[in-house]
C-alpha cells in the first residue's frame, strides 16, 4: 500500500494506517533529526513531537501524495525549535554509540554521521533532506523557502566537505 492510500485511511480514523506510515518513515526521520540536532535525545524528542503533531493535524494535509515532504517539514521545524531553545550548543556529551537508537548500518556509518554533524546547520539540513529523506532539490527548496540554486550549491559544498572529512578529497583543486 502506498503512502497516499495510508494517508487517506489514516485521515478517516484508521490509527493502524498511521502507524504503518510512521514505521515506513521513522528511521529516515530519526537520521534526519540526529544529523540536524546532533543530539540523539533531541532527535528522539523532535521526531516523537513531530509525529504527534502530524497525527493531530493530518486532516490539514490536503495532498496525500505529499506526506513524505510534509512530515519532513514538521520534523525540520521541531529540530529548529529545539536548536533555537538550546542556543545551538550541545547540552551534554554524547556517548560514542547512540543509545536512543539501535544502529543497524555499516560499521563506519557513524563516522559519516559525525562528519555530517560537523557541517554547518544549512549543510546538515540539505544533506539530511536529500539523502535520508530522498527529496528532490525542488522540494527541498520549497520546504526551506529558498531558491533551488541555493540548495544545489549547499549540497555540492556539503558533499565536498564530507569528502574532505572522510579523507577522500582530491589531490588538487578543481580547475576553475
Amino acid at each position, binding site marked *: 500500500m502506498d503512502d497516499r492510500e495510508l494517508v487517506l485511511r489514516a485521515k478517516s480514523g484508521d*490509527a493502524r494506517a498511521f502507524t504503518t506510515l*510512521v514505521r515506513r518513515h*521513522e528511521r529516515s526521520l530519526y537520521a534526519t533529526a540526529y544529523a540536524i540536532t546532533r543530539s540523539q535525545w533531541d532527535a*528522539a524528542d523532535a521526531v516523537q513531537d513531530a509525529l504527534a503533531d502530524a497525527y493531530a493535524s493530518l486532516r490539514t494535509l490536503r495532498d496525500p501524495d505529499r506526506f513524505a515532504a510534509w512530515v519532513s*517539514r514538521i520534523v525540520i521545524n521541531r529540530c529548529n525549535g529545539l536548536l533555537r531553545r538550546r542556543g545551538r550548543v550541545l547540552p551534554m556529551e554524547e556517548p560514542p554509540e547512540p543509545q536512543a*537508537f539501535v544502529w*543497524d548500518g*555499516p560499521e563506519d556509518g557513524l563516522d559519516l554521521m559525525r562528519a555530517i554533524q560537523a557541517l554547518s546547520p544549512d549543510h546538515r539540513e540539505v544533506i539530511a533532506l536529500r539523502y535520508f529523506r530522498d527529496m528532490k532539490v525542488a522540494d527541498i527548496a520549497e520546504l526551506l523557502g529558498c531558491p533551488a540554486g541555493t540548495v544545489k550549491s549547499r549540497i555540492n559544498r556539503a558533499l565536498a566537505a564530507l569528502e574532505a572529512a572522510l579523507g577522500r578529497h582530491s589531490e588538487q583543486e578543481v580547475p576553475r
Partner: protein
Amino acid sequence: MNCSDVRDALEAYIADDLTDAEQAKLAAHLAGCDECTAAYERTRAVVADLKGIADAFVPRERFVPRPAYAPRPAGGWGWRIVAVAASVVALLAMSALTVPALARQLPLPLTREIDALEEENESLQQQVDELSVRLETVGGEEVAIVDSAPGDLPPEVNAAVQLLAMDFIRAQYAGDLDALAAMGTERLKADIAARPQDYLRPVGAEIVFAQMTEAAVTEDGTYLVFVRLSDSVEWTDSQYQENFEIKLINGVYLVDFMGMDA
C-alpha cells in the same frame, strides 16, 4: 561543458536528475577527463554511503498514535446532534491554538495549506464565539462548562451525567478497575475486562479537568458528555478528551462507552 560546470552538475548526474541532453554532455566530458572522473567516483561513493545510513537508525522508543475515538457504526445514537459540541470542545482547547500555531511555524511556502487552515479555523472560531462557556463546580472541581448541546436537560440529570463521567475518570487515575466496572453497563464491563489498559491512566497523577460539555441526550435516550483534561504525568503539555455515552438503566446512570479523543 568545462570542468567547473561538470563538478556543479555531478550530484544531479548521480541522482539522475539531469535531462538526457545534459546527461550526454556530462558523460562525454567524463570520458575525456580523468580529474572529473575521479571527482565523480568520490562523490558517488559519498552519496552511496549517505543513502546507506538513511535507514540505519532504529529508534528504541516507537511512536504509537493514541487511539482516536471511533464512533460505533450501528445504533444511530444521533452523534451528529452533538458533533458541533465535540468539535467545539476540541477546538476551544486545541485546534484554535495548536493547528494554526503549528502551521505558522512551518516555513513557506505552505501558504495554500495555511490559508485553508486559517479559513477553517476562522469559521470554527465563529462557532466558538457563539457558545457560552461558564465555570461551574462539578464533583468539587471547578470546570469550564461548554453550553453547546441543543435542548437543555433538567439540572439534576445534567449533574448526574457529568458527575458520573468525572467519577469514572477519577477511578481511571486510581487504577481501580472494579470501580470502573461498577460504573459501567454490561457492555462496558465486558470491554474493560477485555482491554483494561485502554481504561487505565497513570495512577496517582494529578488530574486537571479543563472543560466539560453540558450533557446532551440522543434520540435513543443515550446521554453524551465530553471531558477535556490533562494530568501531571502523561498529559502534561497537552490535553486529551474522553467522550462518554451514558445510559439510565433501572434508575441508575451507567457508562456504556468511553472513547479517547485527541
